[in-house]
């Protein structure tokens, strides 16, 4: 081989990469709750301690998170499975040191009939879920990430401006074999695996041409932090289905609850604008009013519950009255549009989507973010396996395992939630009747209820 050709190889392969380009093993795009958890999981993964991981976050570094006195209006309901993941990352202790509120009981009812369902673990000892503010979750994870992540390079104020996926040609007409990213700071990254955690409007999902299903619910969720009248052990989560969408009250603290009210866009705009007093009245009205009650359904339902009570004694309605709202925290009202977004595939060669980038669902069951954290746990486990087999982190075989395993869990949840949302958005008498009788039957059968609890916590 001539010196000239060696020189040529050197030029092509090293000169362009020497100054600005960096070769890394994994790039995580998006430093939200899910993306940061992924980075945190890889930071603590022994198989990745000598691999390079980059976390891209468009926002600036906020430094150490200091817990503000006022509660934030954006909260998550964390399932026991998510808590388990946080425990393994060491982030749960951080959250415990800040604040969280356990949910011991859930009551779901509706405005068109008296049917209701409650969930609680027998002795009220085990918690069904934990309500934690988003800021607290992110603060805890970032703290753990900074403390443990020697292998993780967090690039704040940076986002990818251009992507080249495997098989695409660069300016020199060479086919890309890895994923190459041009960053807003002028740097170029080459990575074996790109993890897209860039939210429901994921640019990676769009740029990599993932087929996506999108349904607009034509609803907006209004969130607010509410003050409750009674100062009691606030550990019940409430959800009432109204004909315009469900309203949920999640316990935040002794007499504070976080509200998520899914309603029409018009009503949402109105709720954000009206004075605080009127807003409180509107919330109380939503929780208490009887206007939509259907007389036909009521009479059939009553005879049905009597009959069922004869067969299954003790299945009487144990309805607990919802709390009365007395105030709303200043400037805590906000709204955002709701949609169902699902990417038909979560992976492509050297690309994996996690969290809302792959799937976004209606908040009515509080499962959205838990599914995202489930993605993190699953992908971390499969990447560990892949590394143990000496595999390339971007190896499609392992990524497909991730896709299969996650879709097996996520799609049923998504279909159920989408179905519930449809089922409860109508006031048609036969449907109201059927859903009321069905709900009451499930409520009376502990076996089914325990199954549901088990499903929701895994």
């Amino acid at each position, binding site marked *: *081989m001539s010196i000239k050709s*060696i020189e040529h190889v050197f030029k092509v392969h090293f000169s362009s990469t020497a100054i600005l380009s960096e070769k890394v093993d994994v790039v995580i795009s998006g430093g939200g709750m899910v993306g940061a958890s992924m980075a945190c999981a890889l930071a603590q993964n022994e*198989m990745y301690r000598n691999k390079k991981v980059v976390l891209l976050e468009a926002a600036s570094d906020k430094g150490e998170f200091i817990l503000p006195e006022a509660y934030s209006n954006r909260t998550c309901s964390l399932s026991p499975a998510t808590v388990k993941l946080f425990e393994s990352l060491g982030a749960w202790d951080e959250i415990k040191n800040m604040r969280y509120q356990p949910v011991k009981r859930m009551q779901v009812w509706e405005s068109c009939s008296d049917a209701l369902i409650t969930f609680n673990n027998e002795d009220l000892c085990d918690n069904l879920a934990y309500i934690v503010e988003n800021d607290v979750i992110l603060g805890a994870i970032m703290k753990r990430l900074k403390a443990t992540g020697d292998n993780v390079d967090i690039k704040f104020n940076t986002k990818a401006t251009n992507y080249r996926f495997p098989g695409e040609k660069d300016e020199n007409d060479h*086919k890309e*074999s890895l994923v190459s990213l041009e960053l807003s700071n002028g740097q170029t990254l080459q990575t074996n695996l790109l993890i897209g955690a860039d939210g429901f409007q994921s640019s990676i999902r769009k740029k990599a041409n993932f087929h996506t299903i999108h349904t607009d619910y034509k609803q907006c969720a209004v969130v607010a932090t509410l003050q409750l009248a009674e100062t009691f052990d606030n550990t019940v989560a409430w959800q009432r289905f109204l004909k315009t969408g469900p309203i949920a009250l999640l316990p935040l603290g002794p007499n504070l609850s976080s509200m998520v009210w899914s309603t029409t866009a018009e009503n949402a705009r109105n709720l954000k604008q009206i004075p605080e007093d009127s807003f409180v009245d509107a919330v109380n009205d939503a929780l208490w009013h009887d206007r939509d009650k259907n007389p036909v359904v009521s009479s059939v339902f009553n005879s049905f519950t009597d009959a069922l009570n004869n067969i299954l004694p003790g299945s009487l309605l144990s309805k607990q009255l919802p709390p009365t709202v007395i105030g709303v925290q200043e400037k805590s009202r906000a709204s955002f549009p709701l949609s169902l977004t699902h990417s038909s595939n979560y992976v492509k060669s050297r690309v994996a989507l996690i969290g809302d980038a792959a799937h976004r669902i209606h908040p009515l069951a509080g499962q959205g973010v838990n599914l995202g954290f489930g993605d993190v746990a699953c992908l971390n486990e499969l990447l560990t396996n892949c590394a143990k087999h*000496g595999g*390339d982190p971007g*190896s499609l075989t392992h990524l497909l395992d991730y896709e299969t395993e996650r879709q097996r869990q996520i799609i049923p949840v*998504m279909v159920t939630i989408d179905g519930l949302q449809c089922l409860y958005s109508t006031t048609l008498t036969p449907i109201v009747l059927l859903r009321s009788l069905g709900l009451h039957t499930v409520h009376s059968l502990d076996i089914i209820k325990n199954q549901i609890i088990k499903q929701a916590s895994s």
Partner: protein
Amino acid sequence: MKYINYRALSRILQNLRIKYESQMSTSKWSVRTSQETSPSYPLDSGLRHYSKTSITRCIQNNEPKAERPRAQTTIDQEEIDRFSALAQLWWDESGEFEALHTMNELRVPLITDSLIEQNTKASGKKDVKIDQPLEGFKILDVGSGGGILTEPLGRLGAFVIGVDASEENIKIAQAHVMHDEKLARNIKYICATVEDMVETEERSFDAVIASEVVEHVADRDMFLKACCKLVKPGGSLFLTTLNKTRMSYLAVVASERVLNLVARGTHDWNKFVSPEEVQYTLTQNGLSTRLVHGMMYNPLSKRWRWIKDTSINYAIHAVCTDEALQLNKVTVE
């Protein structure tokens, strides 16, 4: 319907179509053998060329002096482009060599676990780096092809020499590993045969691996003998191949003649070999067998798993022990 994962669906349909193809295309030589009707010695023109030059060298010097086959370190850009394109054939994980990719899930842990266990036994407790468990091991991957097994072993910390008699394969493997500088430091590819290697590297490897190769060589005994000679005392030899049974015959007939999934002549059932025969040859050459295990490919899940039955695919792990060497009067120079 809107939730259906179309890729999963098409994958299932593909699976139904392909079935045995992957099992049969485990051949690393299938690309070539479909062109060459019957290679006289396993391998191809590149190798013959190599052998010729080494013969002339011997004649000229009058005194044969062994020289280590040179590793491919540089290739020019044009070749990189050409071989990168070919590398996609090897490295497409859902392509022709899919079964070889997924076989790593079995053979990599087998090699890693066995070597570590062997090492711990020999030198007492030793700290193993969890992410680089093979650090310090020198491994020879015989018939490395595109590097499907070579790269994972290198990634786990081993120093791996991949030998392949096909110059094309070596260049493909070389072009692929260049993408990962860190990995490239652990891997060398040499266009040679095991017999060539014996000249300079006798008894120097912690492990010699011949995965899915034995069933393609012309002179099996010579090949295995050379492999055994390369293993250093206390070192291991790993083999995976196809058994010579009715089952494997049916599998070949089904895929090559009935379903036309693989080009005819890719596999020559007559060259298949039973584990007993292999074990006999290995023992003759100073290796004692530690493990014989069947492997099963599920064409639906496209995954391999270990099974007891060795009637189609199987793996052998043998160790070069002093007793076995003495017993068979194999001398170590």
